[in-house]
């Protein structure tokens, strides 16, 4: 009897205490709501292995939301991500406005450059910060840069420089460049020309592969390409590596093993510079790959990874500031001390002059990671990562 009463009292107290704590924690949970606006990428790829998944990009963001929420439960923060897959002709600007009306001010975007530019004014008007996870265009980070657009995806110049450093390190300095006939291909080719000048390589020959339309694949594909590619690549001056600038995914994957001369292929096929690859394992990356596979049962694509990083940046800033105020979160991200860990062996930080995320670039052959740039020996006064892409002294960006 003497033992009973205090126990009861204690139990009652504990229940009351627990309820009080639960109520308090519900009241204090900070909600951080985000969204992704994306367009379905072309499924017309040279290899069917490269066809983008239907949940490409959003799956990565969802994993980041789960990761953020695991952290969030210790500090009463909850993260959500909303998916907006644009229907053909749908206006992304009105979606941004609608999101802002619902107090969603942090928005990931996987759209081509024109789509992103078309969105930017509406976003600014609505007070929305955009995270570019798909467009590699250097102009977006240069002439068209904006104080409210953060570039998580690497730029073409970063990709080209990353590959160039490796080729130069290999002493494969004579390049035979074949570019596609679309505008994006020419921009990529220009990034390679610039990289050649920057790192002391030489483009000994340049040719264009005209896209004559039609399907990428046919049942007789290998028979024809086996005959076509040698013709396309013969009579070139002596070269070390064939570089393909084919962002439009029209021909590059036809090149390896079919060239006139026995030479390796790099760029848009063969050895490719990428922000992520399903085969990357180093620096704990296998953990992220495993988590992603457990969630969606497919390898993680570059867009998935970029989306994951963008939402982790938001999570990191929200955790450190203990805030769900988008202005506070973005301001923290832009401050010099901000960094995010993202399985690339070192911290990723934002370039203050154009809000491009500094990051190592993976060089993969589709099966394995061959190397990771920046390469040893390419030095920089502030960060070796700034040997990739346009550096502060050459930037044309004026943030506003």
């Amino acid at each position, binding site marked *: 009897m003497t033992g009973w009463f205090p126990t009861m009292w204690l139990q009652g107290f504990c229940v009351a205490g627990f309820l009080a704590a639960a109520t308090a924690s519900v009241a204090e949970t900070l909600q951080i709501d985000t969204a992704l606006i994306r367009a379905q990428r072309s499924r017309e790829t040279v290899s069917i292995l490269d066809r983008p998944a239907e949940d490409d990009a959003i799956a990565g963001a969802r994993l980041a939301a789960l*990761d953020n929420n*695991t*952290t969030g439960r*210790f*500090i009463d923060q909850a993260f959500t991500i909303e998916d907006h897959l644009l229907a053909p002709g749908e206006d992304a600007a009105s979606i941004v406005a609608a999101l802002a009306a619902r107090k969603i001010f942090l928005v990931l975007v996987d759209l081509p450059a024109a789509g992103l530019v078309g969105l930017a004014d509406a976003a600014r008007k609505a007070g929305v910060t955009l995270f570019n996870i798909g467009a590699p265009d250097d102009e977006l980070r240069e002439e068209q840069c904006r104080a409210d657009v953060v570039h998580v995806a690497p730029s073409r110049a970063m990709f080209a420089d990353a590959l160039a450093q490796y080729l130069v390190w290999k002493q494969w300095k004579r390049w035979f460049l074949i570019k596609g006939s679309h505008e994006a291909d020419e921009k990529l080719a220009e990034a390679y020309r610039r990289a050649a000048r920057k790192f002391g390589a030489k483009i000994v020959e340049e040719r264009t592969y005209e896209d004559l339309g039609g399907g990428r694949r046919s049942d007789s594909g290998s028979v024809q390409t086996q005959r076509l590619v040698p013709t396309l690549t013969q009579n070139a001056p002596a070269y070390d590596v064939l570089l393909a600038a084919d962002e439009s995914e029209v021909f590059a994957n036809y090149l390896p093993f079919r060239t006139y001369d026995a030479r390796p292929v790099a760029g848009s096929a063969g050895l490719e510079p990428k922000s992520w690859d399903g085969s990357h394992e180093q620096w*704990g990356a296998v*953990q992220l790959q*495993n*988590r992603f596979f*457990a969630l969606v049962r497919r390898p993680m694509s570059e867009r998935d990874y970029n989306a994951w990083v963008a939402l*982790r940046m938001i999570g*990191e800033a929200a*955790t*450190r500031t203990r805030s769900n105020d988008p202005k506070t979160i973005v301001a923290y991200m832009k401050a010099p001390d901000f*960094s*995010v*860990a993202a399985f690339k*062996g*070192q*911290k990723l930080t934002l370039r203050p002059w154009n809000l491009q995320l500094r990051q190592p670039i993976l060089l993969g052959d589709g099966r394995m990671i061959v190397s990771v740039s920046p390469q040893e020996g390419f030095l920089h006064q502030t*960060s*070796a*990562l700034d040997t990739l892409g346009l550096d502060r002294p050459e930037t044309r960006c004026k943030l506003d």
Partner: protein
Amino acid sequence: MQARLIVSLAAALALWGLAAPLPAAAFTAYVSNEKGNSVSVIDTETMAVTKTVPVGARPRGIVLDRDGDRLFVCAGDDNRVEILDTKTLEVTGTLPSGPDPELLVLGPDGRTLYVANENDNMVTAIDIDTKKIIGEIPVGVEPEGMTLSPDGKVLVNTSETTNMAHLIDTATRKIVANILVDARPRAAQHLPDGSKLWVTAEVGGTVSVIDTATNTVEDKIGFSVPGLAAEAIQPVGLRFTADGKRAFVALGPANRVAVIDTATKRIEKYLLVGQRVWQLAFTPDGKYLYTTNGVSNDVSVIDVARLKVVKSIPVGFFPWGIAIAPR
């Protein structure tokens, strides 16, 4: 009488020690080789590998039981902990561990093994006698570092992507505090007097010093090595000398171990060791510190009194964890 004899013997040894470095005593060091799927056994007297024992897939964290009879090996890709008999050097059994066990620590009762499940955001408690899981503690994303306070009351787990040190009451197995540190916290250790908890942050490049009375970060130690990019300095393994006066911090791809005066938190010296230095362990007499060097596939031996690297011992592929038995 006997006590005095021992004291004078110790004094004689100490004097002799001034003249020449003591010969290394015969302990046994165990090194897990992450990609070799093996454990290298090192005789610390000869500083040479005596045997390489095949174990499960992706062995990383290893820990000895109190008597040094059993070595527990996290076989991450096999999702289990293997028990290696240190006398026969054979795997005699396994423990259920939950998915992807990475690092582990033996509880204050000498019987409960706490394992960080990297893929599962969980710390699993296993009874090593009954070989049963007796508890699970949800923690942050990618749980990694594991340590126990000197009084055995607080278990610490670090979570690499959540960037926290989770403090767990070993009596209730409940989290009592979550302390935010810098990016990718890898290892945690208490000062021998329990007053501070140090946590290394691999990507953040710092060591957080936490006051255990208030559970707050009171200081952060940064590193700088002339000629090395800041990004290459990645603090991982961490050990204190028994008197708590010095800390040794492995700096990963900086290929160095930092020696820190714990009172002033000043870095006394950077010792050049093998490539991508990872985990650290003292010999039980405190005279030598062994480091696993993941990329150069070797173990460096540091003479603790002279602060000199005296030996490099080739081991298996990607040496990761290390434990040294008093025998």
